[in-house]
C-alpha cells in the first residue's frame, strides 16, 4: 500500500510507486523514468524504498530519505511525500544559443540566483508547461559564470526543437539540480586521466577536462571523442588548440566511418590500469565501455560514468 497526501492506494505486483501515483491521478514531474535523471525524486516518510530507487543518490539525499519512485517497486508499505526541496531550483536567463555542429547547440544560461555545481554534473531544464530534460554541464564555475550545456538536436525532440526553433536570448527557463558524480573529484593530481565519450557526451568531459587543467592536474590526460563522421566532432579546433598548449593533454577523435573502434582504441590506452576513467554518452555505449575497460584492467572504483537516457 502507498500513502500519499492522506490517500492510500495499492500497487499491482511489480508496479512502481510512480506508476501507482500517476494511476491515482497524482501529477509527478518526470523525464527519463529509468532511475537516472532524478526528476521524479520524492521523499519517504515511512517504510523502506527499494535499493535500486536510491542508487546514485548522494549521502545527503539519502539522509533526507529521497528516492526515485520511477524505479521503486517496494516490498512493503510506503508513505511518501513530495520532495519540494530536493534540488536547488532557480530561474535562468538564456544568454546565448550557438550551433557547435549540425547536430549540437551550445546553450549558455545565466542563473538569476546562486546556483552551485561542479563541472560534469547535470541539470534539468524545465519549461513553463512542464517539459523536463536533463543536460550535462560543460562549463567551470570559476572560469565562466554562465552554465553551458550542449544540446543534441534530435529530430522530433521536444526540448531541443524548442531551443533551436523558438528560444531567444533573454528568454527564461527553470533549472533544477545539479545531480551526478562524474566530476574531477577523488583523483590524484598525478594520476593519468582517460576521458571517453561520444556525441554530446563531450559536454561533461569538456567540463571535467577544464576543471582538471584549472586545478593544475599534472598526470597525462587523454580525451577520446567518438562520432559517426567528421560532422559529429564538435569543438575539434578548440580541443586541438588545447592539446597544442598543454603537453600532457592529448585529443583523440574516433570516427566510425573511418573504421575507428572507440572501445578498442580506449582499451589500448597504456595508462588504463591506474587511470581515473570518465565515461559519458548514451547508456548502451557507456555500459559497454565500462565492462570492456574494467576487464582490460581499469579499477572499478576509478570509473565514473554519466549514462544518458534517451527521451524524445
Amino acid at each position, binding site marked *: 500500500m502507498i500513502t500519499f497526501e492522506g490517500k492510500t492506494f495499492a500497487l499491482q505486483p511489480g508496479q512502481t510507486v510512480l506508476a501507482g501515483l500517476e494511476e491515482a491521478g497524482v501529477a509527478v514531474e518526470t523525464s527519463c523514468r529509468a532511475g537516472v535523471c532524478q526528476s521524479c525524486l520524492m521523499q519517504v516518510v515511512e517504510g523502506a524504498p527499494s*535499493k*535500486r530507487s536510491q*542508487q*546514485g543518490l548522494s549521502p545527503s539525499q539519502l539522509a533526507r530519505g529521497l528516492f526515485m519512485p520511477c524505479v521503486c517497486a517496494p516490498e512493503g508499505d510506503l508513505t511518501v511525500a513530495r520532495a519540494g526541496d530536493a534540488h536547488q531550483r532557480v530561474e535562468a536567463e538564456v544568454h546565448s544559443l550557438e550551433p557547435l555542429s549540425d547536430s549540437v547547440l551550445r546553450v549558455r544560461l545565466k542563473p538569476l540566483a546562486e546556483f552551485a555545481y561542479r563541472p560534469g554534473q547535470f541539470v534539468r531544464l524545465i519549461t513553463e508547461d512542464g517539459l523536463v530534460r536533463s543536460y550535462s554541464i560543460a562549463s567551470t564555475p570559476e572560469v565562466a559564470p554562465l552554465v553551458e550545456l550542449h544540446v543534441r538536436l534530435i529530430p522530433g525532440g521536444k526540448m531541443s526543437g524548442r531551443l533551436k526553433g523558438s528560444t531567444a536570448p533573454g528568454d527564461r527557463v527553470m533549472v533544477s539540480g545539479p545531480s551526478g558524480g562524474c566530476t574531477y573529484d577523488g583523483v590524484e593530481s598525478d594520476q593519468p586521466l582517460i576521458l571517453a565519450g561520444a556525441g554530446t557526451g563531450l559536454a561533461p568531459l569538456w567540463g571535467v577536462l577544464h576543471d582538471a587543467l584549472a586545478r593544475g592536474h599534472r598526470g597525462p590526460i587523454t580525451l577520446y571523442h567518438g562520432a559517426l563522421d567528421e560532422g559529429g566532432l564538435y569543438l575539434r579546433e578548440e580541443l586541438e588548440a588545447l592539446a597544442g598548449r598543454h603537453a600532457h593533454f592529448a585529443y583523440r577523435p574516433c570516427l566510425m566511418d573511418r573504421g575507428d573502434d572507440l572501445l578498442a582504441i580506449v582499451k589500448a590506452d597504456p595508462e588504463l590500469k591506474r587511470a581515473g576513467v570518465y565515461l559519458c554518452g548514451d547508456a548502451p555505449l557507456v*555500459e559497454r565501455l*565500462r*565492462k570492456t575497460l*574494467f*576487464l582490460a584492467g581499469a*579499477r*572499478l*572504483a576509478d570509473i565514473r560514468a554519466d549514462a544518458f537516457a534517451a527521451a524524445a
Partner: protein
Amino acid sequence: MTTLYDRLGGAPAMDAAVDIFYRKVLTDDRISRFFDDIDMERQAAKQKAFLTMVTGGPAHYTGADMRRGHAHLVAQGLDDSHFDAVIELLAGTLTELGARPEDIAEVGALANSVRDDVLGREAVKA
C-alpha cells in the same frame, strides 16, 4: 583474534578484492551468463558486501536476504555447479591477495554455510 578481513587491510582492500573477483566472474564461462546485462556499480557493491562478509568483516546478510537476492537466478538454473565455481574463484581471489591456505579454507566454509539459502533449498543436516 584478528579476522582475515582485518589482515587483508579492511574496507580499502575490499575494492581491490572486488576488482579481482568480479573480473574472474565476468570471464568464467561457467557462470558469466548470470552476470550479463546487470548494473555493474550495483553488482560491485553487492560483491563488496559479500567479500566483507566471508572474510569476517562487518556485513549483515541474513539467510532471507540470500534467498531473495538469488531467487531469480535459481529460476534461471543456478545450481551447485555454479556455486562451486564461485567458491573456486573466491579462493583464487584470496590467494592473489596473499591470504593463507587455512584462511581460504575458513572462508570456503563460511561461504558454504549460505549455500542452501542461495540455492533456495531447505537446509540439509550434514
